């Protein structure tokens, strides 16, 4: 099988011939690194889909190397919208940056019984492994690098909708600018999530919650020149 890998410092991918079938891409890269080319650089950890280290793009689509089984002539590239440090390793400081901007944490959970159904509401959202595949797939980053993207907004919704959470107003306020209204609702983040999370759905929920709290889409608000105005009477 031939695997093509886009490495840093070159425009053309490097090809490796390996004799494997029905194994993960990570198994193949580990083989290349330890037997063929020790300079090939990539991140990996748990090899079981929970540490979020090994997201790459294969043939233009985000995959975890430890879960993806490659075919002949596959093209492997680093994920997008992050500075490449070397080969398939990218700068992951956006994880901390976006989660900090979004106040993506619990403010305090109350004790007491919670039904299984209520807890199930945040089950999928809290499965996130911060692999940043969703950022790589998101077209908004091509125009707004400060977008508090899919994983952070999912994380905010995870805390806002936690039945134990005591205060979520500040969180909703934190995701208004460069946040929920910047999303185009295209849904590209959904199929690439290895944990079957649908960030776009969580963003819709955050929008509707924001609406109930009196926030509005700044694009809608500015459609009439920054506010509604009928003959000098401001509303």
């Amino acid at each position, binding site marked *: 099988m031939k695997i093509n890998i886009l490495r840093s410092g070159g425009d053309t991918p490097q090809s490796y011939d390996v004799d494997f079938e029905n194994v993960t891409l990570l198994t193949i890269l580990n083989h290349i690194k330890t037997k063929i080319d020790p*300079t090939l650089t990539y991140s990996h950890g748990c090899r079981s889909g*929970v540490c979020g280290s090994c997201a790459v793009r294969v043939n233009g689509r985000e995959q975890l190397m430890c879960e993806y089984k490659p075919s002949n002539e596959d093209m492997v590239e680093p994920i997008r919208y992050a500075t490449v440090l070397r080969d398939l390793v990218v700068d992951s400081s956006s994880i901390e940056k976006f989660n900090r901007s979004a106040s993506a944490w619990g403010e305090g959970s109350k004790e007491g019984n919670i039904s299984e159904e209520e*807890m199930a509401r945040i089950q999928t959202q809290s499965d996130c492994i911060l692999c940043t595949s969703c950022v790589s797939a998101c077209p908004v980053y091509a125009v707004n690098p400060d977008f508090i993207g899919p994983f952070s907004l999912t994380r905010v919704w995870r805390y806002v909708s936690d039945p134990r959470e005591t205060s979520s107003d500040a969180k909703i306020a934190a995701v208004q600018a460069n946040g929920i209204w910047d999303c185009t609702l295209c849904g590209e983040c959904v199929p690439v999530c290895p944990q079957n999370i649908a960030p776009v759905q969580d963003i819709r929920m955050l929008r509707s919650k924001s609406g109930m709290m009196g926030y509005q889409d700044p694009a809608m608000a500015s459609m009439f020149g920054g506010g509604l105005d009928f003959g000098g009477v401001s509303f």
Partner: protein
Amino acid sequence: MAKILIIGGGGAGLVGALSAHEVGAEVIVVSKTLPTRSQTSMAQGGMNAVLGGDDSVADHIADTLRSSAGLGDEKQITFMCENAPDAVRWCNSMGLPFSRDESGEIARRRLGGASAPRACYAQDYTGLKLLHTLYDQCLKAKISFVNERFLLNLIVDKETNRVLGATFLNIPTGEVEEIRADAVILATGGYAALYGKHSTNAVGSSGDGIAVAIRAGARLADLEFIQFHPTALKNSSILISESARGAGGYLLNGYKERFTDELAPRDVVARAIHDEIASSGAVYLDIRHLGEEFITHELPQERKLAQIYEGIDPVHELIPIKPSAHYSMGGIEVNSECMSSVIGLFAVGECANHKTHGANRLGGNSLLELVVFGRHCGKNAAEFGGKNPVSTLENGQLAKDTNFLRGVMAFNNEIDFYEKQEMLANIFYNDVGLVREEVGLKAVLGAIRQMQKELPFMGPKDKSKIYNTNLVEFIEFGNKVELAEIIVVCAIRRNESRGAHYRGDIPTRNDVMFGTHTIIWREGGVLCADFME
């Protein structure tokens, strides 16, 4: 304000960070990857705590003591078990999404060796969800993270035996740096990755902090005790949580017959599987009778991993399994305040030996240990640092490590260290694994001593300064070789069978001769080991 340096961003490090921050310290957490990528993310089963019902703290203590096979410290175990309910409440208050039972209480399941269902869990993602919840809280507390720094050595003032900080390789730039602090907490995890493809652990569990600690003059304890998880996937050693058996899963041998009590402590079950594989050719985990709905809901991760790595669906098929190296009971010796024998150097979690697991850890006690002792350790380190600040003492460690790294980059790599690493993993699994014998152990020791001599002929082939993972993996290999020697020396000296340390040539326990801890240290570079209280 005391400055606390925490090395390791897994569960233990993050709990320590929150706790040190809470008492007013300035905290910096250094990680060799990113905090959310650490080993804790892989913990599945749960966190033990008695939350009422028919269970009691006394039973939790008794179960833990029994499983520890004489090497658990009753005071430490009591401290852990008594603080367990509060630890779970604390995690709940931060937002850890525990699964719930029908009445809406935090659900608990039964794990091996426990007299009652007491492992609080979040599906089979308990570690992942705990780790991420902690990380979120650290961001909220504005704790500083420095990522992608590989720990090289501790900076210790030899005159006073006081830790002053640590040196690191900045992985992205290739520079050697130092970080000074009033107290240092090692939370670097265990060393089960030494077993390579026969380990459930992430590749990074190479015991760096433990190797660094003994080089810095700290004492280690009980390194021969390594837990083998009974049920890892046969081809990849990926963990299938004990909760699969807790929920009623069976173990079947090559003739598709049950052969053991599935919920005995891990050392017992793992050895039974080992023997059965030898006699009947294979062992399988059977969870088919639990039904698709249960498996999808309670064991989603297991199902996915079995499909990817074994190509089978556990809803309809048997899961081929084998025991794999899973947890390091041994580690840096610490006192009840979590301080090591180097002043100001603390250790917590899997890299430390809190003497709570003894010779065999119970499922559900490791996440518990890292929360209970992480809180204790963070507070103690902050208070110690506050009372005993260090001025910026002159120290040559940074210069020494800069030179060391320059030297390593110039090694001629005539011998391939990846090949040696694979060999070490294989001989460890075969001869320093579930069943050990003096002859095999001594042969392994010979091989390790040879590798030590050959290290200067190995080294990284990649000569790049930028993000050189070949270099990082070589230094990790060096740490593994350092610990491998210690583990084997301990295993040879312990002429008995106890908990996870089973000697095929001496299958009985001998409390008179070996009823105490193996303590290990270096004196003038010479490895010393002795049995001590």
